[in-house]
């Protein structure tokens, strides 16, 4: 890990430099325009300074985004509608619900596929095809359906949460399915034969051999799935007229021309993604310890 820190910092530094250059380049037109109206000429130093502090820049400078992000996270009460923590939580709720549903769906389909040949032949190709279908095309549909059928009220939840959850689950089940099919098949023939000689039942060989040996695959796919679930939750907020959540925040900011807020929401989403991936990593380490994995 230590050997990576310096190269990562170098790459991040390069990205920051490129970003600052783009900021100057993209915001310059506005500065020249303003200066042209008052009949002044701007020097290079003045130009650079002016591109960094605009209120509605084409591309906000990194420190402006950081300030807006900090204001959204720490500058507001957590329950305020202006707080990014609040909107982040709304999005995360849907993400986690969809993630959980996706895991259940993915694992149960994987078990079915591994144990029944007919399911492998029929379901697997459709699971692959389902991923090439752009779910966002379905998103407005799912929202309308869950609203008209009041799925949410039937479950005692908000309708909006239900539609976001379905979209998240759809995006996250596939990595889990593929990972688990691989994982459950990972014990080699020798190990399976060994359990057969011990007269193990089907359930026992699942519990003591297939399930434990699928765990590394399971957690690797969870990291992909949680990221996909977050994308699903945010996409679910975009076309649906949602009023809460990071996706809705971006939409509102874009409609009212507040680029700083838009970028801050985008980075808040990135923070949430980072937290979720770290969380999955922590659970994996805990599970490894509980199952007696020696590092």
């Amino acid at each position, binding site marked *: 890990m230590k050997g990576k820190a310096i190269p990562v910092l170098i790459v991040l530094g390069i990205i920051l430099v490129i970003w600052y250059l783009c900021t100057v380049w993209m915001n310059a037109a506005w500065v020249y325009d303003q200066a042209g109206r008052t009949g002044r000429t701007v020097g290079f130093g003045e130009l650079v300074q002016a591109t960094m502090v605009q209120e509605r820049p084409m591309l906000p400078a990194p420190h402006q985004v950081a300030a807006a992000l900090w204001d959204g996270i720490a500058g507001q009460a957590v329950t305020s509608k202006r707080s990014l923590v609040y909107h982040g939580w709304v999005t995360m709720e849907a993400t986690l619900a969809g993630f959980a549903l996706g895991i259940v769906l993915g694992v149960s389909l994987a078990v079915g596929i591994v144990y029944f040949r007919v399911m492998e032949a029929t379901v697997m190709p459709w699971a692959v095809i389902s991923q090439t279908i752009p779910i966002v095309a379905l998103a407005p549909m799912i929202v309308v359906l869950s609203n008209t059928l009041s799925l949410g009220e039937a479950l005692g939840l908000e309708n909006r949460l239900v539609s976001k959850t379905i979209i998240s689950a759809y995006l996250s089940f596939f990595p889990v399915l593929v990972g688990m099919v691989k994982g459950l098949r990972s014990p080699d023939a020798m190990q399976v034969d060994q359990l057969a000689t011990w007269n193990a039942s089907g359930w026992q060989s699942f519990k003591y051999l297939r399930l434990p040996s699928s765990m590394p695959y399971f957690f690797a796919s969870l990291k992909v799935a949680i990221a996909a679930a977050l994308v699903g939750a945010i996409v679910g907020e975009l*076309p649906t007229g949602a009023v809460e959540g990071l996706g809705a925040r971006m939409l509102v900011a874009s409609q009212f021309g507040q680029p700083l807020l838009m970028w801050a929401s985008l980075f808040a989403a990135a923070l949430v993604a980072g937290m979720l991936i770290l969380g999955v990593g922590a659970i994996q380490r805990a599970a490894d310890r509980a199952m007696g994995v020696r590092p």
Partner: protein
Amino acid sequence: MSGLWLAIVFWIAAWGANVWIARRARGRLAGMVPPVLFGLAVLVLWEGAVRAFAVPEVILPAPSVVVAAIGANLGTLWGDFVQTIVKGAFSGYAMGCGAALVVAVLVDRSPVLTRGLLPVGNFVAALPIVGVAPIMVTWFGFGWQSKAAVVFAMVFFPVLVNAVAGLTAADRMHRDLMRTYAAGYWTTLFKLRLPSAAPFIFNGLKIATTLAVIGAIVAEFFGSPTRGMGFRISTAVGSLALPMVWAQIFVAALAGTLFYGFVAMIERRVTFWHPSQRVRG
């Protein structure tokens, strides 16, 4: 209700046929028939259930109604397809993947950058990049250019990460062999390293096909000219013209699947030597 019972009988018969095929048959046909039968059974059950329970069209139109909508709106569907997929998704995909490959080759010359880029790129690839859609629409306007830009941003990092990882995949021994042949940097790159990176690159390219279609459609939710699949879907949902929505979903699904299948086909041609592509004898 008889329609529903017929549908259920069809479902059971299809399932039985699939069980039989899965047990007995081998070969190419056995791989094709069960999923097709399964898909047909789902459609028949859908049609039967919609008719039997008289589900209103604004909730779920029957497949036959959707097919009729497709037939009646071929011109519109084609126009939307050209606007979103051909102009938005394809151009963004080509530019994004091309740029990612060029950057990957450049970055690859420096080991420090390679090591730093992989974790950063992997993280960025996991981010909800679709969120840049509103930003791109403000930058590039409502036309297809903003859609292509969103697609560019979405496909860039997955392809870059895979290409950079792939370029490190060439065997030490193979590189040494190229050196003993006195092959220069470019010869080694084209004859050895790019071909051995191809499985990784195609992995990225395949992921990117789905992302490209998603990006192009989502970007249209933020503003578009009065055509395009995302535009049509959101307006059709608004006016409860659900058969039209399902027709668009069908086109989107077909386009996504064909796009993916096309890239996978090129992959089979290019990386025929790779173990995962070999035909099992």
